[in-house]
């Protein structure tokens, strides 16, 4: 049986609509001011797709390809601009772990809050409470306010509630990227078993390995359209090869921030026209930002490889408070250190004491290429790193 049928679905945004809200004054003044031309973005266009009961469908694509928009439409959070979809059966959407969690409430209270929001009844939650607590491993902290939890505990509890949902259709957006490796494994296993029970699962992820191992079918979205559909291995391979030919800009505007600072651009310093750099060059990441309020801030970068494996993170280590104004911080990844490949950098900003965090997930993407550092070996090096290490050779004692 076709459990979801999507017919030429499209979703249009006006640019600006998603960025900021208006005040009455803005609307009034736009009456007599010359109208600035409004841009229109089709986040989704002409999506047609049908999903059989019991299928686990993976949805992959670059950021901004429309994956989340598609999930939001199917879970009725937002409406399409054109086309239609028919969803047969009870659908639960997990677009965020811990939706509705309140820091003042205890773990137990939050289980009820979150469970109800996800569509569980009170008696259903009561019945599953023990199993949820077991799964999360929060144990004795059940009656402690969540604000005293570590972030790991918080995530584990939130996912535990979600893992106990039993809808006919489960819609999941990138929630497996949270938690430590061990917990991720546990969550993946839980998803696998729920798929085996005949549940239909729609699964968006950047974790291509997870998509390959979990999904029975896969769809690749690009700029709001389905560009490839088929077996996960085939689609993932296509995605990776396409991505290899792409070029990326050297400077990416982000304009994201909080009350303390706003990150304007993140750039790669290179002599190339696009974000490419030779292995023998130091990789200089330049973050241009504005301090909005006199404060001590911290920046953090995290590097990911092509398979979306996290390689490392680095925290800025200048600690003096900065007056209001524009700043540029640079972070230098040493030369002869990374391997050839494509890398993604995410940038985060914090206030002192790690308050008001925000993260730009795709702050910059760049490619490295071999510019002749190995003179005589031209085959592939494995792994994301290719460091020039110190080797010593001495004559041994006979």
């Amino acid at each position, binding site marked *: 049986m076709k459990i979801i049928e999507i017919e030429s679905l499209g979703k249009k*945004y006006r640019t600006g609509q998603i960025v900021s809200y208006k005040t009455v004054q803005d609307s009034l003044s736009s009456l007599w001011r010359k109208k600035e031309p409004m841009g229109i973005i089709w986040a989704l266009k002409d999506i047609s797709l049908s999903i059989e009961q019991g299928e686990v469908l993976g949805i992959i694509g670059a950021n901004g390809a429309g994956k989340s928009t598609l999930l939001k439409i199917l879970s009725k959070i937002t*409406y399409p601009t054109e086309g239609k979809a028919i*969803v047969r*059966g009870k659908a639960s959407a997990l677009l965020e772990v811990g939706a509705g969690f309140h820091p003042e*409430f205890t773990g137990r209270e939050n289980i009820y809050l979150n469970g109800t929001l996800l569509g569980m009844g009170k008696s259903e939650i009561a019945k599953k409470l023990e199993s949820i607590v077991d799964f999360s491993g929060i144990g004795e902290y059940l009656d402690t306010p969540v604000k005293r939890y570590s972030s790991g505990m918080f995530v584990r509890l939130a996912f535990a509630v979600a893992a106990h949902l039993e809808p006919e259709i489960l819609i999941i957006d990138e929630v497996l990227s949270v938690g430590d490796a061990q917990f991720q494994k546990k969550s993946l296993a839980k998803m696998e078993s729920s798929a085996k029970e005949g549940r239909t699962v729609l699964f968006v992820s950047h974790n291509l390995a997870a998509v390959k191992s979990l999904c029975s079918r896969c769809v690749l979205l690009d700029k709001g359209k389905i560009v490839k559909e088929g077996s996960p291995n085939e689609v993932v391979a296509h995605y990776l090869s396409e991505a290899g030919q792409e070029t990326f800009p050297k400077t990416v505007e982000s304009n994201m921030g909080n009350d303390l600072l706003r990150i304007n651009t993140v750039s790669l310093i290179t002599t190339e026209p696009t974000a490419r750099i030779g292995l023998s060059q130091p990789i200089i990441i330049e973050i241009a930002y504005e301090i909005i309020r006199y404060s001590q801030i911290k920046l953090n970068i995290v590097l990911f490889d092509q398979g979306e494996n996290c390689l490392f993170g680095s925290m800025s280590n200048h600690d003096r408070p900065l007056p209001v104004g524009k700043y540029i911080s640079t972070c230098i990844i040493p030369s002869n250190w990374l391997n050839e490949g494509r890398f993604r950098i995410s940038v985060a900003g914090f206030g002192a004491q790690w308050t008001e965090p925000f993260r730009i997930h795709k702050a910059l993407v760049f490619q490295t290429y071999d510019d002749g550092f190995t003179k005589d070996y031209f085959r592939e090096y494995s792994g994301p790193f290719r460091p020039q290490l110190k080797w010593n050779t001495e004559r041994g004692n006979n």
Partner: protein
Amino acid sequence: MSEIKATLISPSSNSLDLRELWQYRGLLRMFVWRDIKLRYKQTVLGLSWAVAQPLFTMIVFSLLFGALAKIPSEGIPYPLFSYSGLLAWTLFSGGLGRGASSLVTETSLVQKVYFPRIILPLSGVLSPLLDFAIAFVILIGLMIYFGYYPSAMMLFIIPLLLLQLLFTLGLSFWLSAINVEYRDIAQVIPFLIQLLLFASPVIYATSLVPARFHTAYMILNPMAGIIEGYRWAILGTERPDYLLGISALMIIAILVSGAIYFKHREKAFADVI
């Protein structure tokens, strides 16, 4: 397997689905419970705060307007007169404040979870009811102290209360939906509530307003008819038939138009908020 419910997702908006709303009553209960619990968490006095607000306002009003300004209160002791008005007023202002900001304060939920959005203003309007019940007990105490004995007439409070909740809800539909797009509303609400207090017969009786303005008064402020209604049911003042009738018509108009506007804007909430 039971029959499978098919949901159609299309660009046209859905009409108000009361059956779905009923299915989500557990969530409504949860939101109300959460709001009440949060308000009194980490407070020393806890629920006594529910009493403090109308009680101290009554004391200040009695000193200022009763004892000093000597505003006539239709022969009723001024503390009792103003408290009976404040009782309804506190419920109204609390419900409107919460209801009107309900969507914006739950931005992340609106963006990430589906549920009938109408639950948010609804829970905002209902959550101050516990405070109302507690403040009501104090009213009975005050009545006995001033020699007014509760009678069966007080049962009329129930329909009046219902009417008042519908009014608060109607206004909350309008304001919460506009607030999603225009944050000016957040600035307007406290100001509006303050102004409306003086435009309501809390401090004074409607009889103080010239009779030819009564109709306009009730149209502009339906709370006036309701407050007069409460006084009639509690203290046996003159029955405000005409005033209450106009208030009720006005309330129905605001409620229906509010619900239509809310449903119409609902589609865009997650994109605009």
